[in-house]
C-alpha cells in the first residue's frame, strides 16, 4: 500500500474521529483473494480522500455465519461485543466489504442496541461515481468486454441493492450482459446459510457449478461480484470447468481500481 492504513485506535489516540469506518470482515482479513479486494477498497478510499479507519485486530466476526446456522447465542455474543467496540469509538457510519457483514450490522444490530448508517462498498462506489469523484479513466480499458454481474443474495434479495454494483460497471464502456437468472431471480453461489463452512448435502451437482453454467451461457469474459464468499465459489466453479483462461472473476472494487489505474 502507498499509504498506511489508519486504525480507530490510532485515530482515537490522536483525538480524531474518521468520517467512516471500513468494516473489513473475516474473509477480507484472512482469505488471500479477499485480502486483495480489501486493499483495493482502501485504495479507493485513499484516492478520493475520504477520512476512514479500520478496527484492525479489534474487529471480530459479526456473528453472521453462526446466526444463519442456528447458533443465536453465539451470534448475539459476537454482536454485543462488536457493538461495545463500535460505540466505544463513537462510530456513526460504516462501509463493509461483504454483503453478509452489511446485512447483519445494518439489519440485526439495531435490535441489540447498535445503530449505525451502514453501506456496502458497491454503494459507496456508486455514490463516488455520482459525485464525479471516481471516473473510469487512467487505467485498464474494459471497452467491448462482456461483463456480467452475479447478485450476492444478501445484497440483492436480502436488501434490494441491485443498481449500485451495476452503476459501477456501466461507466466502463464495456458490454454488460445479464445472466438468465439475475437480480431478484439471481441464483445463489452456494455459500450462504453456513454452507461455506461445510460439505454440501448429497445431490447431483454443486451449486457453484450450476451458477458457472449461467456465466458460460451468457458468454461473459468477466463475472463481477461483490461478496468474498461468492468470489470463492465462482472462482472454484470456473476452475472446475477449466475456463480460467476465458472467464475472470473480479470484485466490483477490483474492477474500479483497475479502470482508474489506482
Amino acid at each position, binding site marked *: 500500500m502507498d499509504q498506511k492504513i489508519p486504525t480507530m485506535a490510532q485515530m482515537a489516540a490522536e483525538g480524531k474521529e474518521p468520517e467512516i469506518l471500513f468494516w473489513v470482515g473475516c474473509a477480507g482479513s484472512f482469505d488471500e483473494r479477499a485480502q486483495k479486494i480489501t486493499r483495493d477498497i482502501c485504495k479507493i478510499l485513499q484516492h478520493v480522500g475520504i477520512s476512514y479507519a479500520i478496527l484492525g485486530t479489534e474487529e471480530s466476526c459479526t456473528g453472521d455465519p453462526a446466526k*444463519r446456522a442456528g447458533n*443465536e*447465542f453465539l451470534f448475539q455474543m459476537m454482536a454485543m461485543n462488536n457493538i461495545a467496540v463500535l460505540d466505544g469509538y463513537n462510530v456513526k457510519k460504516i462501509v463493509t466489504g461483504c454483503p453478509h457483514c452489511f446485512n447483519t450490522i445494518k439489519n440485526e444490530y439495531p435490535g441489540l442496541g447498535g445503530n449505525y448508517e451502514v453501506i456496502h462498498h458497491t454503494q459507496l462506489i456508486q455514490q463516488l461515481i455520482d459525485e464525479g469523484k471516481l471516473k473510469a479513466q487512467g487505467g485498464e480499458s474494459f471497452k467491448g468486454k462482456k461483463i456480467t454481474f452475479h447478485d450476492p443474495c444478501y445484497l440483492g434479495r436480502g436488501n434490494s441493492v441491485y443498481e449500485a454494483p451495476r452503476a459501477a460497471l456501466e461507466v466502463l464502456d464495456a458490454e454488460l450482459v445479464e445472466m438468465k437468472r439475475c437480480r431478484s431471480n439471481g441464483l445463489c453461489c452456494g455459500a450462504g446459510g453456513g454452507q461455506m463452512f461445510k460439505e454440501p448435502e448429497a*445431490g447431483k451437482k454443486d451449486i457453484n457449478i450450476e451458477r458457472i453454467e449461467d456465466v458460460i451461457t451468457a458468454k461473459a469474459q468477466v463475472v463481477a461480484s461483490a461478496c468474498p464468499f461468492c468470489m470463492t465459489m465462482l472462482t472454484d466453479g470456473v476452475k472446475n470447468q477449466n475456463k480460467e483462461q476465458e472467464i475472470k472473476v473480479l470484485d466490483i472494487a477490483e474492477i474500479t481500481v483497475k479502470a482508474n489505474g489506482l
Partner: protein
Amino acid sequence: MIAQAIFIIILGAAVYLFTKNAGKVRRNILLGKDVDRTDQPALRWKTMAKVALGQTKMVKRPVAAVMHFFIYMGFIIINLEVLEIMIDGVFGSHRIFSGPLGGLYNLLIGSFEVLALLVLVSCVVFLCRRNIVRLKRFSGTEMTQWPKSDANYILCIEILLMTAFLTMNAADYKLQLLHFEHYVKAGSFPISSLIAPILPGSASALSVLERGCWWFHIVGILAFLNYLPYSKHFHILLAFPNVYYSNLNPKGKFTNMASVTNEVKAMLDPSFVPENTGEPARFGVKDVTDLTWKNLMEAYTCTECGRCTSVCPANITGKLLSPRKIMMDTRDRVTEVGNNLDKHGKDYDDGKTLLDTYISREELWACTSCNACTEACPVNINPLEIITEMRRYVVMEESQAPASLNNMFGNVENNGAPWKYSQADRFNWADNE
C-alpha cells in the same frame, strides 16, 4: 315453495359446515405462538392490495399469471351472479337483478359469460400442463397422490361449474325467445347463445335443463366451498390475510431471539436482571406448536404451486430440500395435532414431531438461506423462517449441528473468525502485497 325450502336447508347446512371446518383451521393456526404483525397498517394494506389483490408476484411466470388472472377474475366477478342465484333461490324469484339494473344487467351477464369461457379454457390448459405436458414444477417427492388429485379435482370442479353456468344461460336464452312462462327477456348471452342451437327445442325440456343446471351450479358451489378447508384451494381465502400479515422487514433480516438476548446480557453483565418474558424455555422449533401463528397460516395458505422449489438452489442441484415440502409438512403436521386435540384432548402425545417425523435434518442443512423461495412465492410465504427456527432447535437445544459447523462455531467464539486464524493476525493483510 318446496324448492325454496330445499334451497334454504342446503344453503344453511353448507354455511354451517363450512363455518365449523374453517373454524377448525383457525383453531389450528392459533396453536402457534404469538407474534405481532399489526404494525404499519397503511403499508400492510398497500402490500395486500399489490401482492394479493393485484397479483404482482404472479407475473414472473407470464403464462400461468394470465391464466390464473382469468380464473381469479372469474371467481370474484361471477360471484356477483352467485348473489343473484342465492336471492332467487331463497325467494323463488327469477333473475331478480334484471329489473332494477336494466341495461347494466345485460352488460354484467354478458361479461360473466366471457369470463366463464376464459375460466373454462384456463382450467383446461392448467389440466394439460399438469397431466399431459407434465411440468417439472408439479412433481417432486412431496407431490404424492393426494396433492396431485387435489389439484385435478379443483380444476375439474371449476370446469363443471362453468359448463353448468353456460348451459343454464343457453337454456334460459332459448326460453326467453319462446316467451315461456316467467322467462322474461333479461341478460345478453354472447357465449351461451352459440351453444343454444345444440340444445333441445321443446320448452319443457329446456326448462328442465335450465333448472337442472341452476341447481347443479349452486349446489356445486356450496359443495366446493366445503371442500376448501380440506384442500390447497383454501388459498383463495387465506391469501389475503396472509399477505396482509407479511414480513415487512428486508429479507436478509432474521429475528433476534429475545429469550437469547436475556441470557447473553446476563452472561456479559452479571448485574443484569432479565425482564420476565414469560416465554417457554425451548429455543427454536421442534414441533408445529413452537412455530408462530403466522408460520401456520402460511402453511394453510400454500397452494403447492412449487415456484419456491423450482428456484431453490439446493433443490435444483438435486438435494433433498424442497421449500414447498417444508410448508406442506407443516400444514399436515398441524392438522394432525389438531385432529389429536379433537380425538384425545389436551396433553396427548402421539410421539411424532415436525422435526424428524416430517422434516429431516438433511433437508434443513441443505438450505443456503438465499431467500429465492420467499422472493418467488406469490403470496409471501416464508419457508426460510421455519428452516432457521428448526436449525436453532437442533443447534441450541440438542447441540447436534454437523461437525464442520461446530468447528466454525468454535472458531468464531475463540478467534473471532469462522476460520482457525488468530485474531492478532487480523490486520496482516495490509503488509501482504
